[in-house]
């Protein structure tokens, strides 16, 4: 199997944990005899080398190294570029971490399948959590990275929020440069505008810098902040991240998951991951677990349905549709359109003495069926139809504040 992931550049904050997880999980799988008795050999490809290089490396790994299945990618730009290549090469392609809903909504692919949610579901869950948990707010500002995903995510969040709360006023939409070292002006402007809510879909170094500079200037306590991708930054931010910030985990991912943290398999994985990397797992680690679990499930299902020792790639792709599998948290299923249905976990930060960084409390889990764009609909259109009742839907699981 080929795995494309960021091993260089700023997105390696996701890519390297993803690779570490893959190594750990594949070693486990091979120790059990692999999939249907066939051991897995991963070949990692660096997404950080640029789209052209990525595409030729991807072809090389499929054609020369004879990879039978590919896991691509962290970045939506990589996924958008690689999915047509996978069709062309007729190689099963698992979208393991990329978030753009457009990849599967605008195309009909035979060989690509997504084993996780997309940003439509992620942004909707964050907006639902916000309107439910923050009673009166009238003004919202967005600060988002100036690149495709930053603009798309803010666009989707904005549509969902406007649909849920039509009277809300968007007072600023700022798009600082991707990788910007300085947010002085943005922070000054936020202080002048004093919005009730500030939404920032950044990640990695950009989110760290923003929180660090905003925190130093006392802005973090002036508004309710919403960081839909913030779960991946909590450990690094340490004391700079205050309590009361709304944080999302791009799916049903958190190392202190309210339902699974005490489960032996989950606990053991968290400990082993921590031994290997000296950090707690973040969402790309759990996305990788989902992709590998889906792969194993689909091979076994295909072998069983077709009564063959090793399924063909057509049989494998057919097996993905309707497949139910579990990574390390809740069960994920794959729809007819190859899109994964994954629950969404959102919480609010608290400070506790056990950890040197902020942890999540008052978590809510939004079931995938409630927040995922239905088959055939486009996320932007569907999100604009969302009604406020959805925020109080009985299928949402809420977890009370801990002492």
């Amino acid at each position, binding site marked *: 199997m080929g795995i494309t992931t960021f091993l260089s550049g700023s997105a390696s904050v996701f890519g390297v944990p993803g690779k570490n997880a893959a190594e750990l999980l594949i070693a486990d799988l091979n120790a059990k005899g692999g999939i249907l008795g066939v051991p897995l050999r991963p070949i990692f490809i660096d997404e950080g080398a640029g789209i052209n290089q990525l595409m030729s490396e991807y072809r090389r790994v499929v054609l020369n190294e004879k990879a039978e299945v590919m896991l691509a990618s962290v970045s939506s730009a990589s996924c958008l570029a690689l999915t047509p290549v996978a069709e062309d090469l007729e190689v099963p392609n698992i979208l393991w971490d990329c978030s753009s809903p457009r990849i599967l909504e605008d195309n009909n692919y035979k060989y690509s399948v997504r084993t996780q949610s997309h940003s439509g579901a992620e942004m909707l869950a964050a907006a639902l959590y916000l309107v439910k948990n923050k009673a009166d707010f009238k003004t919202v500002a967005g600060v988002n990275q100036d690149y495709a995903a930053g603009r798309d995510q803010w666009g989707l969040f904005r549509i969902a929020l406007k649909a849920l709360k039509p009277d809300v006023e968007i007072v600023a939409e700022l798009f600082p440069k991707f990788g910007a070292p300085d947010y002085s002006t943005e922070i000054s402007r936020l202080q002048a505008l004093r919005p009730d809510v500030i939404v920032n879909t950044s990640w990695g170094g950009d989110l760290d810098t923003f929180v*660090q500079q905003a925190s*130093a200037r006392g802005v973090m306590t002036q508004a309710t902040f919403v960081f839909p991708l913030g779960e991946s930054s909590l450990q690094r931010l340490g004391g*700079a991240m205050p309590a009361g910030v709304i944080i999302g985990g791009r799916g049903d991912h958190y190392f202190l998951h309210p339902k699974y943290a005490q489960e032996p398999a989950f606990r053991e994985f968290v400990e082993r991951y921590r031994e290997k990397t000296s950090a707690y797992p973040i969402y790309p680690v759990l996305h990788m677990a989902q992709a590998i679990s889906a792969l194993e499930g689909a091979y076994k299902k295909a072998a069983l349905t077709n009564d063959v020792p090793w399924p063909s790639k057509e049989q494998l792709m057919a097996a993905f549709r309707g497949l139910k599998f579990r990574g390390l948290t809740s069960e994920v299923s794959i729809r007819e359109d190859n899109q994964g249905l994954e629950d969404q976990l959102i919480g609010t930060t608290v400070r506790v003495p056990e950890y040197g960084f902020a942890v999540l409390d008052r978590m809510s889990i939004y079931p995938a069926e409630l927040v995922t764009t239905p088959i055939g609909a486009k996320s932007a259109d569907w999100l604009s139809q969302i009604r406020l009742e959805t925020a109080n839907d009985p299928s949402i699981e809420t977890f009370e504040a801990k002492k």
Partner: protein
Amino acid sequence: MSIQTILLAALDGLSYGAQVFLVAVGLSLIFGVLRIVNVAHGSFYAIGAYVAASFSLLIAAEGWSPWLTYPAMILSACLVGIVLGGALEVGLLRRIYGKEQVLQLLVTFAVFMILEDMQKAVWGVSPYFIDAPLGLLGTVNILGINYSIYQLVIVPFFAAVVLVSLRYVLRRTRLGRIVTAVTDDREIAAAMGVDATRIYLLTFMIGASFAAFGGALASGSTSLVPGMGAGMTILSFAIAATAGLGRIEGAAVAALMIGLGRSLAVYMAPEFDVLVPYLIMFLVLLFKPQGLFSVQQTRKV
């Protein structure tokens, strides 16, 4: 646009401009004297930042006074400039002076790529994050807006110190005159008994130290990520080109223009935030292709 907006934008632009000035002035100085376009310049910025961050972590781990992080920044800048800058000049650049500029670009680009990988090997890929410098000095309230003293006072202060002392050294001291003479004509200066090789080395170390110092100051307010050097290389090229390559004061004015332009854009047209530095560069080069502060060159035959 109110007076208040302009004032706030100016204050924000100042801190940003000061930071990029430090990097751009190093690039400009090196080009002015050595006539070499150093693509690896941003690497000094990144490595200066990483070294300063490592010192901060050490200071925190040993339980020493957090105030030591400030002198540690100056120390890391000198260390990176002298050791790394010196090694690069002696080991590599010395062989390619006077060669075609394409070759110089390729060689320094290769160095940039090697240093990028070296940073990853030494410091890993996870963002580094040092909060002592920003937190120690607290904030000041101007027109209802909290500014961090570190970003508003300390960073511009150091940039001003660099600008003034560089001007002073180049204009008023014997060393400065020697540097100017070598810049003007290396051969004649050498014939007069100037050790031009030493001046080249010294200039390169100083230029690299400025970039590293810019990085060290940045480590106090920004998180350090792989690839941060590339962005700074591009921006400092834009500033140096706007000013005219080799122009020291010009780099300060251009850095301030770009800082101010960016801040105003965030207030008035946030969509153009990213575009502004290059828009300014484009407009300037359209009317003055040699840069704002270029001087007439006499062509040597």
